[in-house]
């Protein structure tokens, strides 16, 4: 079954030009994008699954010799489409700063320690119902050069494939109640409050593991309304 994707769904996304986030100013097209009909090239997409994921790829506390420092957390949820159907067997990739707010990246010069036991990267495959689960460390806030005293709220980057090349989504998951929310131009680039709140995970006491780890639930909703079979003769 091939889905049709109304472009009205795209209104949930932030405007590309969001001048408070300064790097958008020179990286946004100045001419209007051209609307086109979706063809097979847009409506199909890569299928990657278990053969791409190794053991412990979804547990960032087990990837190194020792245990990483910081607050161990479970991040889990469903990858869904707009009609609430689970998106099965799709690849979910994640990357994040360590507990101190530092990435393993040559460009990241934040003077906070690296953790030799934390990579900050993981991947997993959603199951037949679209469910996914990671075990990781709660990332720290980190400064960035956008404006005076700019700090990113704690976040985990997610990359999801979905049903087709145009359901591809790269987003960031935030944590509930972060005091940095009002000051972050990236978070606030999503101008609609309801849409913005969909990027905030919810604390999940039910799945919190006693004596071990807090759980956060984060559902990722991809495009894919109006499922109608498309002729692919």
């Amino acid at each position, binding site marked *: 079954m091939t889905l049709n994707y109304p472009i009205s769904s795209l209104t949930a996304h932030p405007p590309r030009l969001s001048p408070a986030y300064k790097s958008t100013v020179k990286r946004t097209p100045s001419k209007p994008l051209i609307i086109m009909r979706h063809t097979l090239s847009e409506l199909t*997409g890569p299928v990657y699954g278990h053969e791409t994921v190794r053991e412990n790829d979804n547990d960032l506390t087990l990837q190194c010799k020792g245990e990483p420092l910081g607050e161990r957390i479970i991040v889990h949820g469903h990858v869904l489409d707009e009609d609430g159907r689970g998106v099965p067997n799709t690849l979910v990739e994640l990357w994040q700063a360590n507990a101190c707010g530092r990435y393993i990246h040559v460009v990241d010069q934040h003077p906070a320690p690296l953790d030799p036991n934390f990579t900050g990267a993981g991947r997993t495959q959603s199951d037949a119902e679209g469910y996914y689960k990671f075990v990781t460390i709660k990332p720290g806030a980190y400064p960035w050069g956008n404006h005076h005293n700019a700090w990113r709220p704690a976040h985990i980057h997610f990359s999801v494939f979905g049903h087709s090349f145009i359901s591809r989504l790269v987003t960031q998951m935030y944590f509930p109640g972060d005091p940095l929310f009002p000051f972050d131009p990236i978070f606030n680039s999503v101008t609609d409050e309801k849409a913005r709140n969909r990027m905030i995970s919810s604390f999940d006491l039910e799945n919190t593991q006693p004596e071990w780890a807090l759980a956060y639930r984060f559902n990722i909703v991809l495009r894919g309304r109006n499922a109608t079979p498309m002729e692919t003769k």
Partner: protein
Amino acid sequence: MSETAKEITPSQTVGPYFAYGLTPNGKYDWNDAFSNNLVTSDTSGERIRVEGRVFDGDGAPVLDCMLEIWQADAQGRFSDPQDKRALPNSSFRGFGRVGSDGNGGYAFDTIKPGVVPDPDGKPQAPHLVLAVFARGMLLHLYTRIYFDGEAANAADPVLALVPSDRRATLIATRKPGTGNAVYCLDIRLQGDNETVFFEV
């Protein structure tokens, strides 16, 4: 599933630090799930390289972007069960990913895709679909890469939507030389000769 219908999750920038997770490419101690070489030993079709550089509105190279391509095989079929015509035994996946280098450069080694029908069944000229992600881009951009010298370009229904004076921003030019064909296309996010991007 007890979930009811919802609106989609908004996009956020890939940021400056994605390389460790998405494009480690030997520079970081994490295994690559994807590469910029799509060719497998049993892939049929004409081997080509597609390369270029990515520039911002100041004409400065974009050193921290990620490019992904998606394409049909040489027979015009997609490695996706949704394409009912897919070749069952092909190991060609049709997907590639690369991070830009220190010059804003990128390259993909792949095969020239075949002809894919449009929704009316009319042929589209051979093309790659390209997605561009970067710091400073809250939502990735989609464009297409076509190939210079293809007679089918003249009748392509998507190229026909593009004003003729901007069409060249979508057509990779073939480098002179022998051996496998090398096609070049620069991506300009903004400004003079800005690449045509599509709202899909």
